[in-house]
């Protein structure tokens, strides 16, 4: 190719001066990105940097306040995602949008059904899907039910869905967040094939090793604006991270062990029946000592939520649970909390907060029957507010006042409030489920610090996380949960995320290591 023809190749996507304001915040400010066709272009940035807003703009879900979008050289203006699909842009969402009780074929054609005389033309659809799957190396059985598919397969279905609609530019929003390392490798293989076919992939992520592995070009977003465009062959993960954060990265590593001999929580033979034959929890037993963090690794949906809810007394289970030597198996959730269990729930909006109530009322939640919130039959408003002030101060919750509604806070600040609340009243045992999910790097470091300090002070912690670095960094012991069973006990000091991933998917058979 001569220099002349190269110059005439128009960029697949060109964003210029994109600005989007939301009430009180600027989500995107003067974003400039040029994506060359036939490449994998990564957009990296930490949580809350404005990546999602940018992608929503590119996919027509939101309109930018300023700036222009050009696709293949032509200026476009999207009002709805269908406008974006019409010019060949497709989006694979982070959370799959599939109907479980439909087959792969049905899911792919849903909303774009080929019809013959008003009837779904299955034959035509099948030919098209098989052809697409073959040319792009996306192996799936079109007649399987989606509910029987694993996460990696579901993702392939999502990609096929987009290709089926004729997309030439694919946006993948955090596609690896739900995958274990082995599946990530498969996905990347698929992406390379797509690239070879001349398709353009926009890859959004904050996992830098992966980005360096797959991307041909990288754009870094920080605080809503593009701060750098770099060539992956010229940067290290460390440098990229510092561009992303604008400063040194925190690490979740714990220092010396503080594990003692005293058992705080003892779970024996915990079993929870499911709907069918399969048990949701199958003979789960473990101990957590004073000053110990026990990490539970597992692909989501393998019994983690059930385990937490059984320990909290929210869902009934057979077996025996002991807290500091007392049998608490038959106790109510309230009594368990009163006797010193703290609980950072996995979904803070669903289980952790009253979004439409003030911060101090959220401080009372879970502590209704204890000081300082309780005063006989009354709620002690003054003491509750004063104690909320303490949490706001000690845990660096950024809020105008303790009367502010919880929904007005950012995710990181909401989470810090929850951590502060659950650490109140000197708990002996803490359940920390995804304690740093969806919070910014600053809050993440602060939450890790609080967990480490509490551990040093003798707190026993059950840590459940999808972030393998967090698990390996914080835990004293790691147990892998797979299909409701604890299949392996591992020592975090000599395990890699890849090996851990092997256990989590059942690829490596469970052996007790430690």
């Amino acid at each position: 190719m001569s220099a002349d023809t190269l110059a005439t190749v128009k960029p697949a996507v060109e964003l210029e001066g994109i600005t989007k304001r939301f009430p009180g915040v600027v989500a995107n400010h003067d974003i400039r990105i040029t994506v060359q066709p036939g490449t994998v272009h990564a957009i990296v940035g930490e949580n809350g940097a404005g990546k999602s807003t940018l992608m929503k703009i590119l996919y027509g879900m939101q309109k930018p306040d300023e700036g222009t979008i050009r696709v293949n050289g032509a200026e476009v203006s999207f009002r709805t995602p269908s406008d974006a699909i019409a010019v060949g842009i497709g989006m694979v969402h982070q959370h799959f949008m599939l109907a479980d009780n439909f087959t792969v074929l049905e899911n792919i054609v849903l909303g774009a059904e080929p019809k013959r005389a008003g009837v779904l033309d299955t034959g035509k659809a099948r030919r098209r899907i098989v052809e697409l799957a073959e040319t792009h190396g996306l192996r799936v059985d079109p007649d399987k039910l989606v509910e029987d598919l694993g996460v990696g397969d579901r993702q392939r279905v999502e990609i096929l869905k987009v290709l089926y609609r004729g997309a030439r530019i694919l946006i993948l929003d955090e596609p690896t967040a739900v995958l274990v390392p082995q599946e990530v490798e498969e996905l990347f293989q698929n992406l390379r094939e797509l690239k070879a076919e001349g398709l353009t992939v926009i890859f959004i992520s904050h996992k830098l090793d992966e980005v360096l592995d797959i991307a041909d070009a990288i754009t870094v977003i920080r605080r809503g604006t593009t701060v750098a465009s770099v060539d992956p062959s010229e940067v290290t993960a460390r440098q990229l991270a510092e561009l992303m954060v604008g400063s040194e990265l925190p690490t979740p590593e714990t220092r010396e062990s503080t594990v003692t001999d005293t058992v705080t929580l003892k779970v024996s033979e915990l079993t929870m029946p499911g709907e069918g034959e399969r048990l949701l929890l199958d003979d789960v037993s473990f101990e957590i000592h004073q000053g110990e963090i026990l990490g539970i690794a597992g692909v989501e949906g393998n019994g983690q939520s059930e385990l937490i809810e059984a320990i909290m007394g929210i869902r009934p289970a057979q077996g025996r649970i002991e807290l500091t030597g007392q049998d608490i198996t038959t106790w109510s959730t309230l009594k368990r909390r009163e006797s010193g269990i703290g609980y950072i729930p996995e979904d803070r909006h669903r289980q952790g907060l009253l979004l439409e109530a003030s911060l101090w009322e959220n401080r009372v939640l879970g502590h209704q029957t204890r000081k300082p919130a309780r005063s006989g039959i009354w709620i002690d408003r003054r003491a509750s507010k004063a104690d909320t002030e303490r949490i706001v101060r000690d845990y660096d919750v950024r809020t105008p006042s303790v009367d502010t509604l919880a929904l007005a806070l950012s995710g990181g600040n909401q989470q810090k409030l929850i951590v502060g609340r659950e650490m109140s009243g000197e708990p002996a045992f803490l359940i920390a489920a995804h304690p740093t999910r969806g919070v910014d790097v600053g809050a993440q470091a602060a939450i890790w610090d609080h967990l480490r300090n509490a551990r040093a002070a003798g707190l026993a912690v059950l840590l459940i996380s999808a972030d393998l670095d967090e698990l390996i960094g914080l835990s004293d012991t790691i147990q892998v949960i797979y299909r409701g069973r604890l299949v392996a006990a591992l020592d975090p000091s000599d395990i890699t995320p890849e090996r851990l991933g092997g256990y989590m998917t059942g690829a490596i058979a469970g052996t007790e290591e430690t």
Partner: protein
Amino acid sequence: MPAGLNRALLTVAGAVVAIVLAIAICSVAINVAGGDPLTALTALFDFGETPRAQANSIATFLNRAVPLFIAGLAVAVGFRMNLFNIGVEGQYRIAAICAAYVGSTFTAPAWIQIPVIIVVAALVGGLYALIPAVMKVTRGVNEVIATIMLNYIAINLAAFLVRGPFAGQRAKGELTVTTPQLPDSAMFPDLNFLFEGFGMLPPTRGGGLWGFLVVAILLGVVIWVVLERTRFGFNVKASGLNGPAALASGVNPKTMVISAMVLSGAIAGLIGLPEILGDRGAYNSNFTAGLGFLGIAVALLGRNKPVGIAIAALLFAFLDRAQGALQFADIPPSVITIIQGAIVLLVVVANEVTNRFALRLEERRAAQQLGRNTPVEVTA
């Protein structure tokens, strides 16, 4: 607190807009019906010619507001935790007839007689509400369906009781059936002296201004305190705002369903008492029906808060009272029902809109305040 004040002002503004819109809609309806909207509007404020008629109008207006207020409170206690007690209608009717009957079986000094009747009414109402509550927590029966069905049972049971077991003496040729007359000591002292205090003539119709108004106000204050200041109230609020979070915080949802439902029913039990103790002295077949259903509208209008419910009850009573005046002005009184319906619908919409707006405002205020207070980090 400015943030709370802001929210309150927004709510009031939304409600006012909704009421103005509702009147506009009804003006159109009146026009179509061949009336003059302006005449109708004047008729709404027409309290009568003579001082006596005015006093009577005011008493009728307040007497109507009292049971509506109590009904609104009863419904609101359930609504607060997303528990739809549609059964207030049945609960108050069964409670009223039982209280009227029990009150007629003995005679004691007023300070014993009246409290006993009140307690019986609350007890019966609460017990009747316990049925759907138990069905919900043990068998998962939806309380809406259960309470609607129990309404039919209660209404027909009351009709049977007043003819059969609880029937009192009936004068020859009289058509209404009634429970035995209550002793004089059961009649609640009226508040007619208030009119004299304002230099007006005391009302004469329907037993004057019912003294139960005082009980209703007290009840409103007590319910406010319970809902806003106690642990129980906090648990009700938490369960209503976010059930899973309340559960995770240690609130037992079953206990909450039972206690909220029984409290709601107990309050509902009092709805019929202003009329019985203030005027009729018995439960008869002319007893005012439909207050339980109106209570749902009143609670919605008042946003489940005692002060709001009081305002809503006064508004509804004001409109109800105007039905007579409208007839004199040659305008179909059913216009009032249209206005009430339109107001409830529009206020519910307005509430939703202002609520979202208020929440957004709060987010923006917080973002702005934080933007000012925290130094902007200088990045490389």
